[in-house]
């Protein structure tokens, strides 16, 4: 039994602690820079508060086990999981729970080898690189392939579990993926589930939030919509959401990229000299050229849709690319 260092009547100014750690700054930026995601922000605030209180308790000598910090982010693609992982690393670093606060983002390919004896060194190498920071495993459920019992993914999981348990001070692991597939992954790996303390769910963005995200992205790139373009983009979101492979903010970014291509081509083909303003503005025409405004008639599998040239840059054309 450890003796409390301070008398129980001593008070501690939590607000001062909070300011001192510089966490407020990160949380405020999180609020300001990320659109929507209210439940996620609340969870992050909760976790930050818990860690802060834990730190104060530890200083007062109140025994508490070191908190388990491994997390699981579930949500559809493009909902901000990777972005949040970067912020989480910053918060953990400011609170002193990880030393360096860098994020090593990996997928199955980086962890699992291709032949016997290849997996362990590969996984260990990644773990070594991630020590002192956060290991972000995207689409973590791919690590486990129940249909193939000789799959090397299991080996990677075991090494991962061992480090997650024994070197909690050195490394925080964040798993990310679709909610339903992560649930199945945890069902078949109860050891993994029990070692993850925080499950954070990312809701989908609504259209207003996506439009806001689009405007911020454009502002970052020094572009903007004109009024008609903005209205057309709202329409676009409405159409796009109904289509398969909708990936929230990532779809928005891809769409904006394609609109920039169309804008460039429009300016290039136009005979008139362009002003600085023209270079920045995306018009309704740039938006409305999208394939999603032109419903395609059903085509045979493997046959190119007849209007393929309308939007040749649209990765949605490729049905097997599930991330778009």
């Amino acid at each position: 039994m450890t003796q409390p260092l301070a008398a129980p009547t001593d008070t501690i100014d939590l607000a001062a602690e909070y300011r001192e750690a510089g966490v407020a700054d990160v949380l405020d930026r999180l609020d300001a820079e990320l659109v929507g995601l209210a439940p996620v922000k609340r969870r992050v605030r909760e976790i930050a508060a818990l860690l802060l209180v834990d730190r104060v308790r530890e200083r007062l000598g109140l025994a508490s086990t070191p908190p388990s910090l491994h997390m699981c982010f579930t949500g559809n693609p493009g909902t901000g999981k990777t972005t949040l992982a970067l912020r989480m690393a910053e918060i953990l670093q400011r609170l002193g729970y990880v030393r360096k606060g860098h994020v090593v983002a990996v997928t199955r390919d980086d962890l699992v080898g291709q032949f016997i004896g290849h997996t362990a060194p590969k996984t260990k190498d990644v773990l070594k690189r991630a020590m002192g920071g956060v290991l972000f495993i995207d689409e973590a459920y791919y690590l486990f392939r129940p249909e193939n019992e000789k799959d090397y993914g299991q080996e990677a999981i075991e090494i991962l579990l061992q480090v997650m348990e024994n070197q909690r001070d050195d490394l925080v692991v964040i798993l990310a993926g679709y909610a339903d597939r992560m649930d199945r992954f945890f069902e078949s790996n109860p050891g993994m589930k029990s070692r993850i303390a925080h499950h954070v769910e990312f809701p989908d963005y609504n259209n207003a939030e996506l439009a806001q995200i689009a405007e911020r992205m454009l502002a970052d790139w020094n572009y903007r919509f004109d009024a008609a373009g903005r209205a057309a983009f709202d329409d676009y979101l409405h159409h796009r959401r109904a289509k398969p492979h909708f990936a929230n903010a990532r779809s928005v970014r891809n769409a904006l990229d394609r609109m920039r291509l169309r804008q460039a081509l429009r300016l290039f083909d136009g005979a008139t000299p362009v002003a600085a303003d023209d270079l920045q503005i995306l018009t309704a025409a740039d938006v409305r050229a999208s394939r999603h405004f032109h419903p395609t008639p059903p085509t045979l599998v493997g046959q190119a849709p007849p209007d393929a040239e309308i939007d040749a840059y649209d990765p949605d054309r490729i049905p097997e690319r599930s991330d778009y």
Partner: protein
Amino acid sequence: MRITQGAFSFLPDLTDAQIAAQIEYCLRNDWAVAIEFTDDPHPRNTYWSMWGHPMFDLADAAGAMQALRECREARPGHYIRINAFDPSAGWESVRLSFIVGRPAVEPGFRLVRREGPGRTLHYTLESYAVGRQPEGERYAT
């Protein structure tokens, strides 16, 4: 006879915390840390065996310390050293090298005298441990 090679070798053996602090210093300078081991500690034997690859994109000493623990476990009774390689242009060489593990008993070296033509003497060193046992068993306890 205690072998003194590399930095810090006239100091008492570094503790793990001190080793981690040194590695931290290397990483701060963007040097790549590598672990090497041998049981032939002749001063002219510069080519020790590598334990894994040099760790080029390490951010924190914990990763190197874990590799060091693994090396100690797999190679008991060996000399282990840490090399820090500076890849920056103009240096491109090892900037720091220090021993982080040594066998419990170090029998040391014998001075060998070889007589040459005209009663000249050639001197060389020979390790007792290396002469006694084959590789891998030299410092086994």
